[in-house]
Protein backbone atom coordinates (compact mmCIF):
# COMPACT_ATOMS: atom_id res chain seq x y z
CA UNK A 1 0.00 0.00 0.00
CA UNK A 2 1.31 3.36 -0.85
CA UNK A 3 -0.27 6.76 -0.74
CA UNK A 4 1.75 9.52 -2.23
CA UNK A 5 2.65 12.32 0.13
CA UNK A 6 2.22 14.82 -2.62
CA UNK A 7 -0.72 15.36 -4.89
CA UNK A 8 -0.68 13.69 -8.27
CA UNK A 9 -0.66 15.71 -11.41
CA UNK A 10 -3.76 15.23 -13.49
CA UNK A 11 -3.07 17.52 -16.42
CA UNK A 12 -1.56 20.84 -17.24
CA UNK A 13 -3.71 23.84 -17.91
CA UNK A 14 -1.32 25.89 -19.93
CA UNK A 15 1.63 25.99 -17.60
CA UNK A 16 -0.54 25.55 -14.55
CA UNK A 17 -0.39 22.05 -13.12
CA UNK A 18 -3.84 20.84 -12.15
CA UNK A 19 -3.43 18.29 -9.39
CA UNK A 20 -6.12 16.12 -7.93
CA UNK A 21 -6.09 17.99 -4.63
CA UNK A 22 -6.57 21.37 -6.21
CA UNK A 23 -9.37 19.90 -8.28
CA UNK A 24 -11.09 18.77 -5.08
CA UNK A 25 -10.49 22.10 -3.44
CA UNK A 26 -11.99 23.87 -6.43
CA UNK A 27 -15.00 21.63 -6.24
CA UNK A 28 -15.36 22.41 -2.55
CA UNK A 29 -14.95 26.11 -3.12
CA UNK A 30 -17.42 26.09 -5.96
CA UNK A 31 -19.89 24.15 -3.84
CA UNK A 32 -19.59 26.67 -1.03
CA UNK A 33 -19.89 29.60 -3.40
CA UNK A 34 -23.01 28.17 -5.01
CA UNK A 35 -24.57 27.41 -1.65
CA UNK A 36 -23.66 30.86 -0.35
CA UNK A 37 -25.21 32.58 -3.34
CA UNK A 38 -28.32 30.42 -3.20
CA UNK A 39 -28.75 30.89 0.53
CA UNK A 40 -27.85 34.55 0.37
CA UNK A 41 -30.18 35.05 -2.57
CA UNK A 42 -33.30 33.97 -0.77
CA UNK A 43 -32.34 34.87 2.72
CA UNK A 44 -35.21 34.48 5.11
CA UNK A 45 -35.81 36.27 8.31
CA UNK A 46 -36.71 33.04 10.02
CA UNK A 47 -33.81 30.74 9.24
CA UNK A 48 -34.47 27.29 7.92
CA UNK A 49 -32.38 24.45 6.61
CA UNK A 50 -28.89 25.24 5.50
CA UNK A 51 -29.22 28.91 6.32
CA UNK A 52 -29.53 27.84 9.90
CA UNK A 53 -26.24 25.96 9.68
CA UNK A 54 -24.43 29.00 8.35
CA UNK A 55 -25.97 31.22 10.98
CA UNK A 56 -24.96 28.76 13.66
CA UNK A 57 -21.36 28.73 12.45
CA UNK A 58 -21.31 32.49 12.25
CA UNK A 59 -22.81 32.93 15.67
CA UNK A 60 -20.44 30.39 17.18
CA UNK A 61 -17.41 32.30 15.95
CA UNK A 62 -18.92 35.62 16.82
CA UNK A 63 -19.41 34.42 20.37
CA UNK A 64 -15.85 33.16 20.58
CA UNK A 65 -14.33 36.24 18.98
CA UNK A 66 -16.14 38.58 21.32
CA UNK A 67 -15.19 36.39 24.23
CA UNK A 68 -11.51 36.50 23.33
CA UNK A 69 -11.12 39.98 21.87
CA UNK A 70 -14.19 41.91 22.89
CA UNK A 71 -16.20 43.90 20.38
CA UNK A 72 -13.12 44.30 18.15
CA UNK A 73 -13.25 40.58 17.43
CA UNK A 74 -16.43 40.98 15.43
CA UNK A 75 -14.68 42.04 12.26
CA UNK A 76 -12.65 38.84 12.13
CA UNK A 77 -15.69 36.62 12.26
CA UNK A 78 -16.05 36.36 8.45
CA UNK A 79 -12.44 35.26 8.16
CA UNK A 80 -12.82 32.66 10.89
CA UNK A 81 -16.08 31.39 9.48
CA UNK A 82 -14.65 31.19 5.96
CA UNK A 83 -11.64 29.28 7.22
CA UNK A 84 -13.86 26.93 9.12
CA UNK A 85 -16.26 26.39 6.25
CA UNK A 86 -13.54 25.89 3.67
CA UNK A 87 -11.57 23.44 5.78
CA UNK A 88 -14.56 21.45 6.93
CA UNK A 89 -15.94 21.24 3.40
CA UNK A 90 -12.59 20.06 2.05
CA UNK A 91 -12.15 17.58 4.87
CA UNK A 92 -15.59 16.09 4.48
CA UNK A 93 -15.29 15.97 0.72
CA UNK A 94 -12.03 14.14 1.24
CA UNK A 95 -13.67 11.54 3.41
CA UNK A 96 -16.39 10.83 0.89
CA UNK A 97 -16.11 7.45 -0.78
CA UNK A 98 -14.68 7.82 -4.22
CA UNK A 99 -12.13 10.43 -3.24
CA UNK A 100 -8.81 8.68 -3.43
CA UNK A 101 -10.28 5.55 -4.92
CA UNK A 102 -11.86 6.85 -8.08
CA UNK A 103 -9.05 7.35 -10.49
CA UNK A 104 -7.22 6.62 -13.64
CA UNK A 105 -4.28 4.46 -14.55
CA UNK A 106 -1.50 6.34 -16.11
CA UNK A 107 1.09 4.61 -18.17
CA UNK A 108 3.80 7.06 -17.59
CA UNK A 109 4.90 8.35 -20.89
CA UNK A 110 6.33 11.76 -21.52
CA UNK A 111 3.06 13.57 -21.98
CA UNK A 112 0.76 14.16 -19.00
CA UNK A 113 -2.11 12.98 -21.13
CA UNK A 114 -4.66 11.14 -19.10
CA UNK A 115 -5.44 7.56 -19.80
CA UNK A 116 -9.10 7.27 -19.20
CA UNK A 117 -9.43 3.61 -19.66
CA UNK A 118 -9.56 3.14 -15.91
CA UNK A 119 -12.13 3.99 -13.29
CA UNK A 120 -13.88 0.67 -13.53
CA UNK A 121 -17.50 0.08 -12.78
CA UNK A 122 -16.69 -1.19 -9.31
CA UNK A 123 -15.60 2.24 -8.35
CA UNK A 124 -18.61 3.98 -9.66
CA UNK A 125 -20.71 2.69 -6.80
CA UNK A 126 -20.05 5.23 -4.17
CA UNK A 127 -19.44 2.91 -1.28
CA UNK A 128 -16.67 2.86 1.22
CA UNK A 129 -15.91 -0.58 -0.03
CA UNK A 130 -14.95 0.91 -3.31
CA UNK A 131 -12.12 2.66 -1.61
CA UNK A 132 -9.97 -0.38 -1.23
CA UNK A 133 -10.72 -1.92 -4.56
CA UNK A 134 -8.20 0.44 -5.95
CA UNK A 135 -5.92 0.73 -3.06
CA UNK A 136 -4.98 -2.81 -3.71
CA UNK A 137 -3.56 -2.41 -7.19
CA UNK A 138 -1.92 0.75 -6.03
CA UNK A 139 -0.44 -1.13 -3.14
CA UNK A 140 0.87 -3.90 -5.31
CA UNK A 141 2.24 -1.33 -7.57
CA UNK A 142 4.04 0.40 -4.81
CA UNK A 143 5.48 -2.83 -3.57
CA UNK A 144 6.71 -3.63 -6.97
CA UNK A 145 8.21 -0.29 -7.68
CA UNK A 146 10.83 1.09 -5.33
CA UNK A 147 10.36 4.50 -6.85
CA UNK A 148 7.46 5.74 -4.83
CA UNK A 149 5.62 8.49 -6.54
CA UNK A 150 3.61 8.76 -9.68
CA UNK A 151 6.48 10.44 -11.37
CA UNK A 152 8.28 7.14 -11.40
CA UNK A 153 10.62 7.14 -14.27
CA UNK A 154 10.77 3.46 -14.99
CA UNK A 155 7.47 2.17 -16.27
CA UNK A 156 6.42 -0.74 -14.14
CA UNK A 157 3.08 -0.87 -15.76
CA UNK A 158 0.36 1.71 -15.27
CA UNK A 159 0.39 3.95 -12.20
CA UNK A 160 -2.85 4.59 -10.40
CA UNK A 161 -3.70 8.25 -10.14
CA UNK A 162 -6.73 9.10 -8.03
CA UNK A 163 -8.94 11.69 -9.61
CA UNK A 164 -9.75 13.37 -6.30
CA UNK A 165 -7.73 13.90 -3.22
CA UNK A 166 -8.70 15.69 -0.03
CA UNK A 167 -7.76 19.32 -0.51
CA UNK A 168 -6.10 19.46 2.87
CA UNK A 169 -4.13 16.29 2.20
CA UNK A 170 -1.91 18.56 0.19
CA UNK A 171 0.71 20.73 1.84
CA UNK A 172 0.13 23.42 -0.76
CA UNK A 173 -3.38 24.04 0.48
CA UNK A 174 -2.57 23.94 4.16
CA UNK A 175 0.49 26.14 3.80
CA UNK A 176 -1.42 28.56 1.65
CA UNK A 177 -4.01 28.85 4.42
CA UNK A 178 -1.33 29.10 7.10
CA UNK A 179 0.56 31.83 5.26
CA UNK A 180 -2.64 33.77 4.57
CA UNK A 181 -3.56 33.58 8.23
CA UNK A 182 -0.14 34.62 9.47
CA UNK A 183 0.03 37.51 7.03
CA UNK A 184 -3.39 38.70 8.14
CA UNK A 185 -2.40 38.37 11.78
CA UNK A 186 0.70 40.50 11.33
CA UNK A 187 -0.99 43.03 9.09
CA UNK A 188 -3.75 43.46 11.64
CA UNK A 189 -1.16 43.70 14.40
CA UNK A 190 0.67 46.47 12.58
CA UNK A 191 -2.59 48.21 11.75
CA UNK A 192 -3.86 48.15 15.29
CA UNK A 193 -0.69 48.85 17.26
CA UNK A 194 1.57 50.61 14.78
CA UNK A 195 4.70 49.25 13.16
CA UNK A 196 7.15 50.10 15.93
CA UNK A 197 4.82 48.75 18.56
CA UNK A 198 4.29 45.59 16.59
CA UNK A 199 7.99 45.06 16.00
CA UNK A 200 8.55 45.38 19.74
CA UNK A 201 7.14 41.87 19.99
CA UNK A 202 10.18 40.55 18.18
CA UNK A 203 13.10 41.87 20.18
CA UNK A 204 14.01 38.30 20.85
CA UNK A 205 15.03 36.56 17.61
CA UNK A 206 13.47 33.40 18.94
CA UNK A 207 10.11 35.13 18.57
CA UNK A 208 10.69 35.43 14.85
CA UNK A 209 11.54 31.74 14.69
CA UNK A 210 8.37 31.04 16.61
CA UNK A 211 6.34 32.93 14.02
CA UNK A 212 7.72 30.71 11.29
CA UNK A 213 7.16 27.65 13.40
CA UNK A 214 3.56 28.77 13.72
CA UNK A 215 3.22 28.58 9.97
CA UNK A 216 4.81 25.15 9.94
CA UNK A 217 2.68 23.94 12.79
CA UNK A 218 -0.49 25.33 11.21
CA UNK A 219 0.27 23.70 7.91
CA UNK A 220 1.55 20.40 9.15
CA UNK A 221 -1.17 19.97 11.74
CA UNK A 222 -3.96 20.21 9.23
CA UNK A 223 -2.12 18.30 6.54
CA UNK A 224 -1.00 15.59 8.94
CA UNK A 225 -4.43 15.03 10.39
CA UNK A 226 -6.17 14.84 7.06
CA UNK A 227 -3.46 12.85 5.35
CA UNK A 228 -3.17 10.45 8.26
CA UNK A 229 -6.92 10.07 8.11
CA UNK A 230 -6.72 9.11 4.47
CA UNK A 231 -3.94 6.65 5.14
CA UNK A 232 -5.93 5.20 7.99
CA UNK A 233 -9.05 4.82 5.89
CA UNK A 234 -7.18 3.16 3.06
CA UNK A 235 -5.32 0.89 5.42
CA UNK A 236 -8.46 -0.15 7.24
CA UNK A 237 -10.42 -0.71 4.07
CA UNK A 238 -7.75 -2.84 2.50
CA UNK A 239 -6.51 -4.48 5.67
CA UNK A 240 -7.40 -8.01 4.57
CA UNK A 241 -5.87 -7.46 1.20
CA UNK A 242 -2.67 -6.29 2.83
CA UNK A 243 -2.57 -9.13 5.36
CA UNK A 244 -3.43 -11.98 3.06
CA UNK A 245 -2.01 -10.59 -0.14
CA UNK A 246 -5.10 -11.81 -2.01
CA UNK A 247 -7.07 -9.27 -3.94
CA UNK A 248 -10.54 -10.66 -3.40
CA UNK A 249 -13.83 -8.85 -3.84
CA UNK A 250 -15.13 -10.29 -0.55
CA UNK A 251 -12.26 -8.63 1.28
CA UNK A 252 -13.35 -5.38 -0.21
CA UNK A 253 -16.88 -5.77 1.11
CA UNK A 254 -15.51 -6.72 4.52
CA UNK A 255 -13.25 -3.72 4.42
CA UNK A 256 -16.29 -1.56 3.84
CA UNK A 257 -17.71 -2.68 7.17
CA UNK A 258 -14.42 -2.28 8.95
CA UNK A 259 -13.83 1.19 7.61
CA UNK A 260 -17.22 2.51 8.66
CA UNK A 261 -16.36 3.58 12.26
CA UNK A 262 -13.17 5.13 10.97
CA UNK A 263 -15.18 7.08 8.46
CA UNK A 264 -17.19 8.50 11.34
CA UNK A 265 -13.97 9.27 13.15
CA UNK A 266 -12.68 11.10 10.11
CA UNK A 267 -15.81 13.19 9.90
CA UNK A 268 -15.25 14.15 13.51
CA UNK A 269 -11.55 14.87 12.93
CA UNK A 270 -12.46 16.95 9.90
CA UNK A 271 -14.73 19.09 12.05
CA UNK A 272 -12.26 19.33 14.91
CA UNK A 273 -9.39 20.33 12.67
CA UNK A 274 -11.45 23.02 10.99
CA UNK A 275 -12.51 24.29 14.38
CA UNK A 276 -8.97 24.17 15.75
CA UNK A 277 -7.61 26.02 12.76
CA UNK A 278 -10.10 28.83 13.23
CA UNK A 279 -9.61 28.90 16.99
CA UNK A 280 -5.84 29.08 16.68
CA UNK A 281 -6.21 31.86 14.17
CA UNK A 282 -8.35 33.71 16.65
CA UNK A 283 -5.98 33.22 19.55
CA UNK A 284 -2.91 34.21 17.52
CA UNK A 285 -4.83 37.24 16.29
CA UNK A 286 -5.66 38.25 19.82
CA UNK A 287 -1.97 37.97 20.71
CA UNK A 288 -1.01 40.80 18.38
CA UNK A 289 -4.21 42.67 17.78
CA UNK A 290 -4.36 45.57 20.13
CA UNK A 291 -7.84 46.65 21.06
CA UNK A 292 -8.34 50.29 21.88
CA UNK A 293 -9.28 50.00 25.48
CA UNK A 294 -7.42 46.98 26.73
CA UNK A 295 -4.23 45.04 26.40
CA UNK A 296 -4.55 41.93 24.23
CA UNK A 297 -5.38 38.77 26.03
CA UNK A 298 -3.23 35.73 26.10
Amino acid at each position, binding site marked *: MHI*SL*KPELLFNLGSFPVTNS*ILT*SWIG*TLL*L*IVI*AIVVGGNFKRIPAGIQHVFEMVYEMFEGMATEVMGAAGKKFVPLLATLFLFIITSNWLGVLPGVGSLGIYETHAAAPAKDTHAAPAKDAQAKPAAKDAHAAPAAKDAHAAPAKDSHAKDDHGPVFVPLFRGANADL*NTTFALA*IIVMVIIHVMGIKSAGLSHHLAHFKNPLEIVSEFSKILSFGFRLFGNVFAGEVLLTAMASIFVIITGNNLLAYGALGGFIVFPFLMLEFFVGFIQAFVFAMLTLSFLSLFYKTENSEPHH
Partner: protein
Amino acid sequence: MLESLGINPVLMLAQAISFGLLYYVLNRFLFSQIRGALEERSAAVSKTLADKTEIEHRLQAFEQEQKAAQKKVAEEVQKMMLDAKDAAASTKAELVAKAKDAADAEFATAQKRIEQEKVAAEAEVSKHAKTLAQSIVQQLLSEKASDPQWQQEQIKASLESLKQSKS
Protein backbone atom coordinates in the same frame (compact mmCIF):
# COMPACT_ATOMS: atom_id res chain seq x y z
CA MET B 1 12.79 18.17 0.50
CA LEU B 2 10.20 20.63 -0.81
CA GLU B 3 9.90 18.56 -3.94
CA SER B 4 9.31 15.37 -2.00
CA LEU B 5 6.57 17.11 0.00
CA GLY B 6 4.99 18.25 -3.21
CA ILE B 7 5.22 21.92 -2.39
CA ASN B 8 4.74 24.04 -5.44
CA PRO B 9 4.54 27.83 -5.14
CA VAL B 10 2.23 28.08 -8.13
CA LEU B 11 -0.24 25.67 -6.56
CA MET B 12 0.04 27.46 -3.26
CA LEU B 13 -0.71 30.77 -4.90
CA ALA B 14 -3.66 29.23 -6.68
CA GLN B 15 -5.03 27.91 -3.42
CA ALA B 16 -4.54 31.27 -1.75
CA ILE B 17 -6.35 33.02 -4.57
CA SER B 18 -9.21 30.58 -4.52
CA PHE B 19 -9.47 30.99 -0.77
CA GLY B 20 -9.51 34.73 -1.17
CA LEU B 21 -12.26 34.42 -3.75
CA LEU B 22 -14.21 32.18 -1.42
CA TYR B 23 -13.78 34.69 1.38
CA TYR B 24 -14.98 37.52 -0.82
CA VAL B 25 -18.03 35.63 -2.06
CA LEU B 26 -19.03 34.32 1.34
CA ASN B 27 -18.59 37.71 2.91
CA ARG B 28 -20.41 39.50 0.15
CA PHE B 29 -23.37 37.20 -0.28
CA LEU B 30 -23.77 35.33 2.96
CA PHE B 31 -22.07 36.78 5.99
CA SER B 32 -23.25 40.31 5.41
CA GLN B 33 -26.81 39.05 5.35
CA ILE B 34 -26.24 36.85 8.37
CA ARG B 35 -24.70 39.77 10.21
CA GLY B 36 -27.64 41.96 9.31
CA ALA B 37 -30.11 39.28 10.33
CA LEU B 38 -28.34 38.66 13.61
CA GLU B 39 -28.19 42.34 14.40
CA GLU B 40 -31.82 42.76 13.46
CA ARG B 41 -32.74 39.78 15.57
CA SER B 42 -30.79 40.95 18.56
CA ALA B 43 -32.28 44.41 18.15
CA ALA B 44 -35.73 42.86 17.97
CA VAL B 45 -35.02 40.75 21.01
CA SER B 46 -33.69 43.69 22.99
CA LYS B 47 -36.68 45.74 21.88
CA THR B 48 -39.01 43.01 23.00
CA LEU B 49 -37.20 42.84 26.30
CA ALA B 50 -37.37 46.61 26.68
CA ASP B 51 -41.07 46.48 25.83
CA LYS B 52 -41.53 43.76 28.37
CA THR B 53 -39.84 45.75 31.11
CA GLU B 54 -41.80 48.80 30.07
CA ILE B 55 -45.02 46.86 30.24
CA GLU B 56 -44.04 45.45 33.56
CA HIS B 57 -43.23 48.91 34.79
CA ARG B 58 -46.53 50.15 33.57
CA LEU B 59 -48.34 47.28 35.11
CA GLN B 60 -46.59 47.89 38.35
CA ALA B 61 -47.35 51.57 38.20
CA PHE B 62 -50.95 50.78 37.38
CA GLU B 63 -51.18 48.36 40.26
CA GLN B 64 -49.64 50.89 42.56
CA GLU B 65 -52.02 53.50 41.31
CA GLN B 66 -54.90 51.18 41.86
CA LYS B 67 -53.67 50.35 45.30
CA ALA B 68 -53.19 54.02 46.06
CA ALA B 69 -56.66 54.75 44.78
CA GLN B 70 -58.10 52.00 46.88
CA LYS B 71 -56.23 53.27 49.86
CA LYS B 72 -57.41 56.78 49.15
CA VAL B 73 -60.98 55.61 48.86
CA ALA B 74 -60.67 53.70 52.08
CA GLU B 75 -59.14 56.71 53.76
CA GLU B 76 -61.84 58.94 52.41
CA VAL B 77 -64.49 56.59 53.63
CA GLN B 78 -62.85 56.51 57.00
CA LYS B 79 -62.50 60.25 56.98
CA MET B 80 -66.09 60.62 55.99
CA MET B 81 -67.12 58.35 58.74
CA LEU B 82 -65.00 60.29 61.16
CA ASP B 83 -66.41 63.52 59.83
CA ALA B 84 -69.89 62.17 60.18
CA LYS B 85 -69.08 61.12 63.67
CA ASP B 86 -67.61 64.51 64.40
CA ALA B 87 -70.54 66.22 62.83
CA ALA B 88 -72.89 64.06 64.77
CA ALA B 89 -70.97 64.78 67.91
CA SER B 90 -70.90 68.51 67.22
CA THR B 91 -74.60 68.53 66.36
CA LYS B 92 -75.27 66.67 69.51
CA ALA B 93 -73.20 69.13 71.49
CA GLU B 94 -74.88 71.99 69.71
CA LEU B 95 -78.23 70.55 70.34
CA VAL B 96 -77.34 69.95 73.92
CA ALA B 97 -75.97 73.44 74.21
CA LYS B 98 -79.02 74.86 72.52
CA ALA B 99 -81.24 72.85 74.73
CA LYS B 100 -79.24 73.95 77.69
CA ASP B 101 -79.41 77.53 76.55
CA ALA B 102 -83.06 77.25 75.96
CA ALA B 103 -83.49 75.65 79.29
CA ASP B 104 -81.32 78.30 80.86
CA ALA B 105 -83.28 81.02 79.21
CA GLU B 106 -86.48 79.42 80.25
CA PHE B 107 -85.15 79.02 83.70
CA ALA B 108 -84.03 82.60 83.77
CA THR B 109 -87.37 83.91 82.58
CA ALA B 110 -89.09 81.65 84.98
CA GLN B 111 -86.92 82.95 87.75
CA LYS B 112 -87.55 86.46 86.66
CA ARG B 113 -91.20 85.83 86.61
CA ILE B 114 -91.04 84.27 89.95
CA GLU B 115 -89.07 87.22 91.13
CA GLN B 116 -91.55 89.58 89.60
CA GLU B 117 -94.37 87.64 91.00
CA LYS B 118 -92.65 87.60 94.28
CA VAL B 119 -92.13 91.33 94.11
CA ALA B 120 -95.64 91.81 93.00
CA ALA B 121 -96.86 89.55 95.74
CA GLU B 122 -94.72 91.35 98.22
CA ALA B 123 -95.99 94.63 96.96
CA GLU B 124 -99.49 93.37 97.22
CA VAL B 125 -98.80 91.97 100.60
CA SER B 126 -97.20 95.21 101.73
CA LYS B 127 -100.06 97.17 100.21
CA HIS B 128 -102.52 94.99 101.98
CA ALA B 129 -100.43 95.24 105.09
CA LYS B 130 -100.29 99.04 104.72
CA THR B 131 -103.97 99.36 104.27
CA LEU B 132 -104.44 96.94 107.11
CA ALA B 133 -102.00 98.83 109.24
CA GLN B 134 -103.61 102.14 108.22
CA SER B 135 -106.99 100.88 109.10
CA ILE B 136 -105.67 99.49 112.36
CA VAL B 137 -103.80 102.72 113.04
CA GLN B 138 -106.88 104.72 112.15
CA GLN B 139 -108.90 102.54 114.39
CA LEU B 140 -106.34 102.81 117.16
CA LEU B 141 -105.89 106.47 116.60
CA SER B 142 -109.51 107.07 116.62
CA GLU B 143 -109.73 105.06 119.81
CA LYS B 144 -106.78 106.64 121.48
CA ALA B 145 -107.14 110.21 120.28
CA SER B 146 -109.81 110.72 122.74
CA ASP B 147 -107.42 109.87 125.51
CA PRO B 148 -105.12 112.99 126.23
CA GLN B 149 -102.84 111.07 128.39
CA TRP B 150 -101.95 108.75 125.68
CA GLN B 151 -101.47 111.72 123.48
CA GLN B 152 -98.94 113.21 125.73
CA GLU B 153 -97.15 109.93 126.10
CA GLN B 154 -97.08 109.61 122.43
CA ILE B 155 -95.60 113.05 121.93
CA LYS B 156 -93.02 112.36 124.51
CA ALA B 157 -91.98 109.10 122.85
CA SER B 158 -91.64 110.70 119.50
CA LEU B 159 -89.60 113.56 120.96
CA GLU B 160 -87.46 110.99 122.61
CA SER B 161 -86.85 109.15 119.36
CA LEU B 162 -86.08 112.42 117.64
CA LYS B 163 -83.55 113.26 120.28
CA GLN B 164 -81.99 109.89 119.89
CA SER B 165 -81.79 110.13 116.20
CA LYS B 166 -80.25 113.62 116.51
CA SER B 167 -77.51 112.42 118.74
